[in-house]
Each structure stands twice: as structure tokens, then as C-alpha cells.
């Protein structure tokens, strides 16, 4: 039988090679892009099923041991993130396959939309390679490299629409991202000065408190918070996500943001949990609570659907940070599982919402919330997708969002931190209010005859609905995900127990 760990490099090679090929052969870019994302999806599923009983696994690339070689590491969290990226990415790719021809075929601005398609596929595949590499990287420096690969591709994708606003947003995104990643690199250097290792698991076992270590961890955390757009550092997110093309908005909001949060979770929930101060967790949770409230209120005030969805991302990111202090005080794996569930169900629901909003925009030529009447008749599947994804964001049963929030709520009360529970409930109420604002208009009759401009391909409606339904019925995957996360908790406990006397 093939060793599952030896398959891991192909998760980087396939998208990378696909991206280069798609760049060299623009006339075949759609075919290459779809084949690469399908292959990536199958590979991610295969690795998950083959290695589920043997994690954690490590694989030294080319047989070179660290520190000179590159080490790939697979554990439960890695597998969940890889599969989430593969499935969401595949649905977005299928959407994009219909999206660009629809825009090219619409008549106006053929010259602008042709190159968009030619550049979308290489950049998206590069981004996918970066994301997979980031989830697989086992040491601090390779995390930096993959973080930069991801950010470069994401910035180029943001600018792809060719509008002035999106170029300005892209440059701002790039500068913020560089500030974040340089801060991360500085922190990495300080940790290396203190411990002389980069390998994450070894670092976690060796690290002892000292001023250099504290400064390093602070720099790493602040850099990553900036890239994750945690309130009040979220200012760059709405313009970048809103002005991008529809498939790009979905990729940025569902996947790219999760990459830097994955690192925060990796460090605060795993590698450095032993030495990080309790006050730090409360601070992150507090900022998360502010993000939930601020993002929710801003989402309520938006006039455009895409803006509402972007501020909803700001709010939903807040939940992920609220989970950190709960995890710190909760011994069992259930709050950890809740956080992972929030991450993956948000990926599905948010990608579905952006894709559905894209369909609305394509058909009507605008996305003003107050003028959405009649969408139900023109785009039935899209309206259904928006409503279903909304249910998951609100956290109603049986959605993935419900499972995540419910477990967090239980854990917060059980560990005596009821105040986080209150924020969770308040955030859900805000989500109900802003989702209702959209859904209310969707299902009213249009005052006049339908004013649709462009046909929306069935695949575009279907891929949005697929992601929405997936995030709604995510409960059926709970045994698999909980098994993966529980095995992480075991290795984490041994890490903590092996060093602390």
C-alpha cells in the first residue's frame, strides 16, 4: 500500500504545475484549472481516509531531514483544513467556469473579461498550492513562505477585476499583508534566536519563557491578527473582498482568511498553549467579541448585498477568536471541535453567499438590498442558496454553524465563562436580523416585469446551492471531524504532559 504521507507533496505539486500550465496555455486554462482542482479534491479525500488512523504523520521532502530540508506534517486539523479547501475550492472552480463566459458573452467590455479568465486560473491554482502548503508546513519558516505565496496570489486576484477601486483595495491589502508577514518573520527570527529550532512540535516542547520569546510571540500574533482582519484591524477587508470578482470574493472570504486564522489556532490552541498567558486569551476573546458586535451592526447598515456579506465575515471571524479562551479553559476536545466546525461551516456558507450574490449581480446588474424583489422568480436556486447559507450563518439547527455555536455555548457555561456565551447569543441575534433583511426582499414579488439583464448558467446557481446545503447538513460529517480533532487533542495532551512536570 502507498504510504499516505508520501502523497502529501502532490497536494502542492498538482496545483502548482496546473497553475504554470494554465499560464502557459491560456486557451486551455479552464480545462487545466478544473482538472487540477478535481485532482486536488480527490487527493485530499484519499489522504484523509488513508491516514485517519495513523495521524500525526511527518514527511521529509526529498528525504532531506530538517533543518535544511522541508518537513510536511499531517494531523487531524491539517486534514480538515485540506479537505475544506479542496471541496470549497472545487465548487468555486465550477462556478468560475460558468462565470467568465457569462461576463465575456454579455457584450460590454469583451477586451477586459477575456484576460480576466486567462489570469484567474493560474492565480487561483497558485493560491491553492500556497494554501495546501501552509496547512502541511511543519515549521515556522515554511509557514512564512507559504503565507507569502498565498498572499501574493490573493492580492493579484483582488486586482483582477481591473477597476480602479479594486486596484486601490489590492495595494492596501498587499501593504497590510506585508506588514503582517514581516512582523511574523521578525517574531520567527526572535524565537529562532531563543530556541535554535524552527520545527513546530520541537519548538513547542523546548520553549521557555524569556523576554525574547515573549517579543517573538507578540510579533507573530500581531502580524497574524492583521492578516486575519480581527477587529479593529479589519479596515482593509470589506473593500478588498467587495470589489473583487465574485469567485475571488468567495475564495478570499471562505479560504484565504482561514489560512492566517489557522496559524493563530495552531499557535494559541496547540504549539505555544503551554506558555501563553491567560490574559492574552482573554484579550483575543474580547477583540473577537467586539468584532462580532461591530461586524453585525455594520452588516445591518449596509445597502449593498456584497458589503453586507463582507461585514458578516468580520463578525463571523469574531466567533473564532471567542473560541480561543474557551478552549484554553476547557480540558476536553469538544470546544476545539466546535471551533473547527465553525471554521468549515463558515467556509461553505460564506462562499455560497458570495457566489449567490454574484448571480444576483450578474442577472440584475446591481446588488442593492432594497431592490432585490423578484429574485425568487428569476433565480430560484440562488434565492434558496442565500436563504440556506443564511440559516447556517445564524446558527439554526441542523447547520454546521449551530453545532459549533451550541458546543461553544455549552463549554463556555461549563467552564464558568458565561460572558462569552452571551456574546455568542447576541451575535446570532444580529445575524438573524441582517440575514432577514436580505431574505425578506428575496421572497417578495417584483413590482414590475422582471428586469433581468443576463442569463446565469445552471452550474453557477447549482455550485452556490451545493455549498449552502453542504454547510447546512454538515452535521453528518461530525463523527469524522470529531475523530480527527480528538486524535489531535491526544497528541496535544502528551505534548503538555511530556514537558510540564
Amino acid at each position, binding site marked *: 500500500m502507498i504510504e499516505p504521507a508520501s502523497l502529501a507533496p502532490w497536494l502542492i505539486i498538482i496545483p502548482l504545475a496546473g497553475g504554470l500550465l494554465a499560464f502557459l496555455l491560456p486557451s486551455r486554462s479552464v480545462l487545466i484549472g478544473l482538472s487540477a482542482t478535481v485532482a486536488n479534491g480527490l487527493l485530499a479525500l484519499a489522504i484523509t481516509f488513508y491516514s485517519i488512523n495513523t495521524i500525526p504523520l511527518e514527511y521529509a521532502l526529498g528525504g532531506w531531514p530538517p533543518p535544511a530540508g522541508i518537513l510536511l506534517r499531517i494531523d487531524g486539523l491539517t486534514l480538515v483544513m485540506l479537505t475544506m479547501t479542496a471541496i470549497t475550492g472545487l465548487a468555486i472552480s465550477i462556478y468560475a467556469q460558468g462565470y467568465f463566459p457569462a461576463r465575456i458573452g454579455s457584450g460590454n467590455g469583451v477586451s477586459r473579461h477575456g484576460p480576466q479568465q486567462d489570469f484567474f486560473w493560474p492565480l487561483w491554482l497558485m493560491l491553492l498550492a500556497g494554501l495546501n502548503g501552509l496547512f502541511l508546513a511543519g515549521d515556522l519558516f515554511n509557514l512564512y513562505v507559504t503565507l507569502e505565496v498565498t498572499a501574493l496570489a490573493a492580492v493579484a486576484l483582488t*486586482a483582477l477585476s481591473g477597476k480602479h477601486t479594486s486596484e486601490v483595495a489590492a*495595494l492596501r491589502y498587499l501593504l497590510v499583508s506585508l506588514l503582517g508577514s514581516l512582523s511574523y518573520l521578525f517574531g520567527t*527570527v526572535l524565537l529562532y534566536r531563543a530556541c535554535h529550532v524552527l520545527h513546530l512540535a520541537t519548538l513547542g516542547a523546548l520553549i521557555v519563557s524569556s523576554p525574547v520569546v515573549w517579543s517573538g510571540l507578540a510579533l507573530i500574533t500581531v502580524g497574524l491578527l492583521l492578516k486575519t482582519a480581527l477587529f479593529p484591524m479589519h479596515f482593509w477587508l470589506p473593500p478588498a473582498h467587495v470589489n473583487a470578482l465574485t469567485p475571488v470574493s468567495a475564495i478570499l472570504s471562505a479560504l484565504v482568511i482561514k489560512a492566517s486564522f489557522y496559524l493563530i489556532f495552531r499557535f494559541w490552541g496547540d504549539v505555544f498553549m503551554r506558555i501563553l498567558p491567560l490574559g492574552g486569551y482573554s484579550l483575543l476573546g474580547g477583540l473577537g467579541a467586539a468584532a462580532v458586535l461591530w461586524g453585525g451592526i455594520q452588516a445591518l447598515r449596509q445597502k449593498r448585498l456584497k458589503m453586507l456579506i463582507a461585514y458578516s465575515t468580520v463578525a463571523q471571524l469574531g466567533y473564532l477568536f471567542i473560541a480561543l479562551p474557551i478552549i484554553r479553559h476547557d480540558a476536553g476536545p469538544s470546544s476545539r471541535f466546535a471551533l473547527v466546525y465553525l471554521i468549515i461551516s463558515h467556509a461553505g456558507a460564506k462562499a455560497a453567499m458570495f457566489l449567490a450574490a454574484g448571480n444576483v449581480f450578474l442577472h440584475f446588474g446591481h446588488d442593492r438590498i432594497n431592490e432585490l424583489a423578484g429574485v425568487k422568480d428569476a433565480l430560484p436556486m440562488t434565492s434558496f442558496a442565500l436563504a440556506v447559507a443564511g440559516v447556517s450563518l445564524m446558527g439554526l439547527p441542523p447547520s454546521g454553524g449551530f453545532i459549533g455555536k451550541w458546543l461553544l455555548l455549552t463549554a463556555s457555561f461549563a467552564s464558568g465563562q458565561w460572558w462569552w456565551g452571551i456574546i455568542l447569543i447576541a451575535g446570532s441575534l444580529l445575524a438573524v436580523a441582517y440575514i432577514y433583511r436580505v431574505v425578506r426582499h428575496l421572497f417578495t414579488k417584483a413590482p414590475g416585469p422582471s428586469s433581468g439583464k443576463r442569463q446565469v448558467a445552471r452550474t453557477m446557481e447549482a455550485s452556490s446551492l451545493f455549498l449552502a446545503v453542504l454547510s447546512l447538513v454538515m452535521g453528518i460529517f461530525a463523527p469524522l471531524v470529531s475523530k480527527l480533532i480528538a486524535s489531535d487533542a491526544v497528541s496535544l495532551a502528551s505534548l503538555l504532559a511530556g514537558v510540564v512536570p
Partner: protein
Amino acid sequence: MTITTGYIISALLLFGIGMNGLMTCSHQLRKILAVNLMASGVFLILIVTGFGTDGSAIDHVPHAMVLTGIVISVSTTALALTLACRIQQRLNRSADETAEGNDDD
């Protein structure tokens, strides 16, 4: 020891000056230069980490990191400059168009 300390202080200064520039300058080119200054600060501290203090052997890992870091820094700078150029070109063009529009009136 004193040389190392000197380098570290310079590196911190470079990083700080760069960060200050990024926050306070409004011109895009200055912001891009500021980011490069920050990167130089980080690279300097990496090189210092590599050379053996008190006669010990040179550590090659930070040097490999600096090389990779420089490559990344070059590509990010290229992307930033491209974006800044496109933004500026578009601003110039729209300024020209308004000027021409005024001539027509």
C-alpha cells in the same frame, strides 16, 4: 558581543523606521520603500543570528532564510510597484480626460 548588539540595534531601528513610514507616509512609493526597509531590518537580524558569536561555528539556517526572504521581498515589491503604477496611470488618465473635457467646454 558589542558588534552583535550594534547590529541588533540597527536592525530594530530599520524595522521601526520602516513601520513608521508605512503608517505615516501617504505616497504609495514611500510606503513600498518603507516595507522594504522593514524587510532589511529583519534580514539584518537574521544574518546576525547566523554568525557564530564567541567563535562558535556559523549557523547556515538563518542564511538560507535570508536568501528565501530576499527572493520573496523582490517579488512582493514587484507586485506592489505594478499595482502602484497602474493606479497612478489611471489617475493621470482621468486627470487628462477632465482637462480635455474642460477644453471642450
